[in-house]
């Protein structure tokens, strides 16, 4: 028997988790030795519900799966139905889908970036990132009428058009965003404190990334070169010029870098889409959905969204299977947590980007000397103290423009 083992339950209701989930982290002193995952405290039965909705209604249902990547699931679903019924969508709809998906990627990555800054005690990053996210949200309001849940998708095209008078606004926002993103990237890569805090933390090897079937930025940061946008081109991704971002290290820093560079790529894609956007219809006539099956994939900000639709020839899906990216990314914690320390729990959990918000509680059960309570504030404080400690260590070396 070495040191006494302690179990820290994170969840089921916890600010770090977009939905109720439970992580039981087993620690020995400061070191993490095991982690277990439990989910579906808030199972909404969307797959079952979809069996009683028509195809057109299901789009709005799957849009409610996630509030942050709310256009990814509809795109994956319409891709699946279009695959099932062999529908070819008009050119203009392709570009519109592309713009909406990329705008969403920018706002989602900025949201993650701000929160990651918050968790390690860089509040300026938090405020700035969210300020620039506002630009994107305002654009969405202009285009679709909503800041979230845009309801733009429809089988056979898009529900709404992007008006020509909105083009200059989109381009203007992109021009405004680009230098800021470059500044962010410079600030992250230059800052010795951030490097010390994030580099080598939560390592995921390439083999583990493949074995655990991870997708999206998590896989790409570990050197697995996959991107649904390139591998299974949907929307207009094969019509514009962009590249897939990969990193080799698989740690938290690599993930941050992948996401930041992806924002730049997204800006590039949106610009080209606006410039190349052809005139024409946005919707084709949709035939009756034949019996059969279809598979749709989409690269959400967090990774590949997968939808499988089985049809029996009625106007409702016989079965809808949804695989959200976090479903395969979260189990990779098993490989990443073991051997890490408690102050790093927050940032590793955050690095997979399971959408974080605020306020809840966390209990630390200390078997032996009674029960202690460790709230989310304590965890945040632990994380911030660690950053402060590193900052002190690096005093005098600091070149960062972001240090407070």
């Amino acid at each position: 028997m070495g040191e006494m083992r302690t179990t820290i339950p994170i969840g089921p209701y916890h600010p770090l988790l977009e939905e109720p989930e439970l992580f039981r982290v087993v620690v020995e002193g400061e070191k993490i030795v095991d982690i277990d995952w439990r989910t579906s405290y808030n199972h909404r039965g969307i797959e079952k519900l979809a069996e009683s909705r028509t195809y057109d209604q299901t789009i709005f249902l799957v849009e409610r799966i996630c509030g942050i990547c709310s256009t990814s699931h509809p795109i994956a679903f319409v891709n699946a139905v279009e695959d099932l019924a062999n529908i070819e969508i008009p050119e203009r709809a392709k570009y519109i889908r592309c713009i909406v998906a990329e705008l969403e990627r920018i706002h989602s990555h900025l949201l993650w970036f701000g929160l990651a800054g918050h968790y390690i005690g860089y509040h300026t990053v938090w405020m700035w990132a969210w300020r620039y996210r506002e630009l994107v949200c305002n654009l969405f309001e202009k285009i679709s009428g909503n800041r979230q849940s845009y309801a733009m998708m429809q089988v056979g095209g898009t529900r709404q058009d992007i008006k020509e008078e909105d083009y200059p606004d989109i381009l203007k926002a992109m021009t405004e965003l680009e230098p800021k993103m470059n500044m962010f990237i410079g600030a992250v890569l230059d800052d010795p404190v951030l490097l010390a805090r994030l580099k080598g933390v939560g390592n995921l090897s390439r083999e583990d990334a493949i074995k655990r079937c991870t997708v999206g930025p998590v896989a790409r940061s570990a050197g697995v070169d996959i991107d649904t946008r390139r591998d299974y081109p949907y929307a207009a991704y094969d019509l514009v010029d962009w590249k897939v971002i990969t990193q080799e290290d698989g740690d938290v820093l690599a993930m941050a870098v992948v996401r930041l560079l992806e924002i730049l790529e997204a800006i590039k894609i949106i610009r080209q889409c606006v410039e190349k956007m052809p005139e024409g219809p946005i919707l084709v006539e949709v035939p009756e959905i034949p019996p059969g099956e279809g598979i749709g994939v989409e690269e959400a900000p967090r990774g590949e969204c997968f939808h499988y639709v089985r049809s029996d020839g009625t106007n409702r899906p016989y079965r809808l299977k949804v695989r959200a990216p976090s479903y395969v990314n979260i189990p990779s914690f098993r490989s990443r947590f073991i051997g890490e320390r408690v102050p790093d729990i927050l940032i590793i959990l955050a690095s997979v980007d399971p959408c974080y918000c605020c306020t809840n509680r966390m209990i630390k059960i200390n078997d032996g000397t009674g029960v202690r309570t460790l709230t989310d504030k304590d965890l945040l404080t632990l994380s911030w103290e660690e950053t402060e400690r590193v900052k002190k260590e690096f005093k005098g070396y600091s070149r960062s423009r972001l240090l407070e």
Partner: protein
Amino acid sequence: MAELNPIQRVKEKFPDKIAELWERSPKRIYITVGREDAKDVVRYLFEDLGARFIIMTALDTRQGIEILYHFSFDTLSKIVSIRTLAPMPFPEIETVSLIIPGAEYIEREIHDILGVNFRNHPNLTRFILGDDWPEGVYPYRKEHKGQYPYRTEEEQELFRKEIRSKWEK
């Protein structure tokens, strides 16, 4: 990644095990195999051909619980689905989570919602359903109409006690 077309290689490797091969489109291929052969085909795709495991789908059909293993050949833009059938009333199949660690949770989910028994699974416990959900009620089967199983106040209290004792030890 495979130089040869992976579909060709699967055909050569398992000439008598493939019941049906359907190339719906160049990007979507469905292969039907027997229940006992599914594991071998999955192992071949994942380990030898280097396919990426996407997820499993299970659905309740008239013939039984149909299980699909979705694989992706990312460089070739092909999604290959291995289809097999676990007949009712006691659907059962060999686990693949020992080959693919990423399949552990989806198998637990399918076990919860459709009642498929995965033989030799390392930890086939509740994952999706609540601890107080009754045994033998599978919400994603077609016979289930979506009601939450009714329980009286006393029964509910008993369940809570039992769960609490499980967690506090």
